[in-house]
Every structure is written in C-alpha cells, then in structure tokens.
C-alpha cells in the first residue's frame, strides 16, 4: 500500500462506489487569513495504490496536523478502510483507493504547518502548507 499522490485543495470529495474524486483548487499551499487567530477549513485528497493481494484487508491511515513549532494540533486521527478490487480490475495491475478529508481548526499564528499521513503503520506522505496573515 503506497500513496501515489496527496494534495491539499479548496474542496475534495471521494465516491465510495467508484473511487472518483472531485477536487477544486488542488495544490493549494498558502492560506491567507484576514486576521489571526482565525479558523481555517481546508481539504486534503490522497490516492493510494495497492497490490491485488492487499485487497479485502483492513488498513489504517493516520493524519497528524502540526503547527510551526512543530507540535501536533489536537490529536492524530485514524481512518480505517478495507479496499476491494473493482470487478473490471485488470489482472496484474495495482488497484487504487481514494481518500478525501475535510478539516477545520483554529489557527493562532502565521507560519509553516504540515499534515503527516501514515498508512499501514508507515510514514507515507507529508504535506506542508503556509498560513499567512493579510496586511
């Protein structure tokens, strides 16, 4: 199981039946806040790739958001999922599973934050993002 790509976005959702994702503003890196402290709502999207033999098993993805210090903001959150092969899956090819996540949290200071993603107990991706205060 590996992360093929992961990004922040202005909006993201994933369909459970198809794995298709709807992304708006993918690649967002900087969030400009009118003033601080304020509340930030943002989205992340990741596409996982896995071997056929890994289908039909339960996996755990863990998300940890860190502030500029870098200390965790709140708790690490776990998402459990059990991917299944598409009936039209091409034998011998990797399969995919999509996860979209929204999060909203209080931001106290400008700086570089990050969201770390662990999949199946291993560090899989780190997405940095900046919070800037408008002058």
């Amino acid at each position, binding site marked *: 199981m590996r992360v093929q790509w992961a990004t922040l976005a202005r909006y993201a959702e994933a369909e459970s039946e198809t794995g298709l994702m709807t992304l708006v503003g993918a690649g967002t890196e900087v969030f400009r806040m009118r003033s601080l402290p304020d509340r930030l709502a943002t989205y992340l999207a990741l596409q996982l790739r896995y071997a056929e033999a890994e289908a039909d098993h339960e996996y755990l993805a863990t998300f940890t958001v860190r502030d500029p210090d870098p200390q965790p903001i*709140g708790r690490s959150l*776990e998402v459990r*999922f059990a991917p299944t092969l598409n009936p039209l899956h091409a034998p011998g090819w990797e399969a995919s599973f999509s*996860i979209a996540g929204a999060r909203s949290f209080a931001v106290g200071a400008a700086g570089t934050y990050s969201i770390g993603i662990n999949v199946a107990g291993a560090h899989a991706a780190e997405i940095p993002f900046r919070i800037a205060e408008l002058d």
Partner: protein
Amino acid sequence: MSSKRAGEKQPSGARHGLTVVLDLTGGRTFVIERPHEIFAALAEIARNDEKRSDGR
C-alpha cells in the same frame, strides 16, 4: 432533519473511496456518506471547539 447524519462508524462500507471529516480537537473522524454532510460536520466541529474555548 430528514438526512442521515454523518457517523463515526469505522471501517465504512467504502470499497474504492472514502470521504471523511477530521475533528482534530475532538479526536473524532466523521465518515461522510453524502457530500452535503461535510458542511454539517465542519459546522458541528466549529461549534464544539467554540464551546471548549469558552469553557477554558
């Protein structure tokens, strides 16, 4: 409210994809069945965070 609320059930019945809302301060993960539930979950998280900060 007629729509089904987002729940914390895990794992979900998702086979190929999953949409979640992450409540960092509350330590909860909402599994989203329908896209409009995202905004309800985000609003609930904001309300709860506000209550927590008022209670400090």
